[in-house]
């Protein structure tokens, strides 16, 4: 069975303009050769810090943005250059959930109108009761249909966004930071809901977040992005147990754990410096400027995504995990941060 989604070598470049002269001063490479596959029924996580290209990747996959290079195959068809009209039926199977629950709902439309829009734009009509059923399915009440978006809380609004995405029973839903605007308690509800719906509707997800905890909660496989490239990709448990890329390790180490005992005791890799500008990426390995293990080779040669353990691929000349069969020579482990004494 073919994968549901295959992205191959996706590139997205934006021209950068001077704010006054509007002259193109350079190019910002938001996505720099990303290849991903999503299998049917699975959830692929995309994590990384802001500016790493994860949202741009989502927009490329859903064809909200035109790729500068690469191909996208969805459900066996090449949709990279498909025109809007040809793409329209494909869109029934390829939906998206957005970050800002309010911004993603038209403030002038009632919930009823918002939820019938998918049908209308596809030249269909919702069956009687279908809207009410959708609402019920995402945990809202049918009478909510008459309300306007601003009458809902953030969590409820996000449920409406989810209902809209699911209205046409898609195969793949791209969730772009669906919970990052929500409070923890609401976030938990939405994460649970997404999981329930996945089972019920046999959905595949591309789940994008900067919160490793949330990603870990819902994803089967996770790709870590840095500066427009995928630096590591592995099954969830493998990734969290054996991060191979120094960046992944640093990311994991930086996530605060809500337990003072663990949090204060664990060694921590504190990365120095800032994210380099995507307009002017470093030569060789994009992470080398902040990498504690960087060596001469890193500046000269860009590491490619290579499979070490089965299903675990990493783009690093000096990966951390020996099980990946690579040398640890020359690697410098950052010294652990002095643990804070108990108060």
């Amino acid at each position, binding site marked *: 069975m073919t994968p549901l989604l295959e992205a191959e070598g996706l590139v997205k470049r934006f021209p950068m303009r001077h704010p006054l002269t509007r002259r193109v001063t350079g190019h910002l490479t938001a996505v720099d050769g990303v290849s991903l596959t999503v299998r049917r029924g699975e959830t692929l996580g995309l994590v990384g810090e802001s500016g790493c290209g994860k949202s741009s990747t989502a927009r490329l996959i859903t064809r909200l943005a035109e790729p500068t290079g690469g191909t996208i195959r969805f459900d066996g068809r090449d949709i990279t250059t498909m025109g809007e009209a040809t793409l329209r039926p494909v869109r029934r199977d390829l939906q998206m959930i957005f970050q800002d629950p309010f911004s993603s709902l038209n403030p002038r439309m009632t919930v009823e109108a918002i939820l019938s829009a998918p049908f209308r734009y596809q030249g269909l009509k919702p069956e009687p009761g279908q809207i009410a059923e959708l609402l019920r399915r995402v945990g809202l009440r049918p009478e909510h249909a008459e309300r306007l978006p601003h009458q809902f809380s953030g969590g409820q609004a996000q449920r409406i966004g989810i209902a809209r995405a699911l209205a046409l029973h898609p195969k793949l839903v791209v969730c772009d930071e669906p919970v990052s605007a929500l409070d923890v308690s609401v976030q938990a509800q939405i994460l649970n809901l997404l999981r329930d719906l996945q089972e019920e509707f046999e959905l595949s997800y591309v789940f994008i977040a900067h919160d490793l905890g949330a990603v870990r909660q819902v994803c089967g496989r996770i790709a870590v992005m840095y500066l427009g490239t995928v630096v590591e990709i592995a099954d969830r448990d493998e990734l969290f147990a054996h991060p191979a890329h120094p960046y992944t390790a640093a990311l994991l180490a930086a996530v605060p754990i*809500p337990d003072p005992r663990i949090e204060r005791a664990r060694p921590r890799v504190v990365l120095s410096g800032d994210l380099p500008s995507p307009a002017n990426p470093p030569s060789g390995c994009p992470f080398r400027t902040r990498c504690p293990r960087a060596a001469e080779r890193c500046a000269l040669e860009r590491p490619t995504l290579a499979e070490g353990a089965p299903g675990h691929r990493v783009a690093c000349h000096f990966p951390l995990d020996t099980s990946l069969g690579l040398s640890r020579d020359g690697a410098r482990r950052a010294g652990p941060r002095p643990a804070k004494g108990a108060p």
Partner: protein
Amino acid sequence: MTLLDVKDLRVSFGETRAVDGLSFSLERGRVLGLVGESGCGKSVTSLAVMGLLNGATTSGEIWFDGQELLGSDRRAVRRLRGDRLAMIFQDPLSSLNPYYPVGFQIAEAYRAHRRTSRKQARAIVVRMLDRVGIPEAERRARDYPHQFSGGMRQRVMIAMALCLEPELIIADEPTTALDVTVQAQILALLDTLRAEYGTAVLLITHDLGVVAGTADEVVVMYGGRAVERGEVHALFEDPREPYTRRLLAAVPRIDRPVPDRLETL
């Protein structure tokens, strides 16, 4: 010795109660984490302490080092502000004036409370920028906020807050706008400087992980009230209140097996 003592603070905007009878106190040199979800009143509390609330009705008492702030005249509070109690905001970009170089903005804070020459102030600025880890501090002092990265801007804000060596820093979601790796840097920096200057910190955040790593004591807020308070280890290990418990359970954690479903409130 109690540095900050908030007693029965109530703040309302028209009909809306933002803070509804909040009390807590903070000792010198300690870190108090004020946690809660959005709308619980934690930010309003910080602004109330700073005397920066506009158009709000406030009652209760805020004692700072033996001085009651709510009842004091505005000039007295203004003199304290920036000097003995400083603040770091959530969004460092919008919190810095885009029209002036960062060095100027730090120097301005200093010169608002200390009589110094421009030159002396400049030297202090460069020293502070250097101290918060901004490379080439001398040159960077002349740059404008938009020329800095998010983490660097927050360092500038920290330099500005610390330049007068205040006794209390109120950090209102200081790392929320930052990425985790940068957040780690900033938290580490805050921690180091705090220890060095012996400053007390009122840390306001929604992130329980941040509190767990930084605070000495914790106040959990909900609906404008303190739901639970306590020493950080005790509170996390044995939360008394169901709200605190559920809040903790709702966080997807990377250090435990993945649960089938997350706890919800």
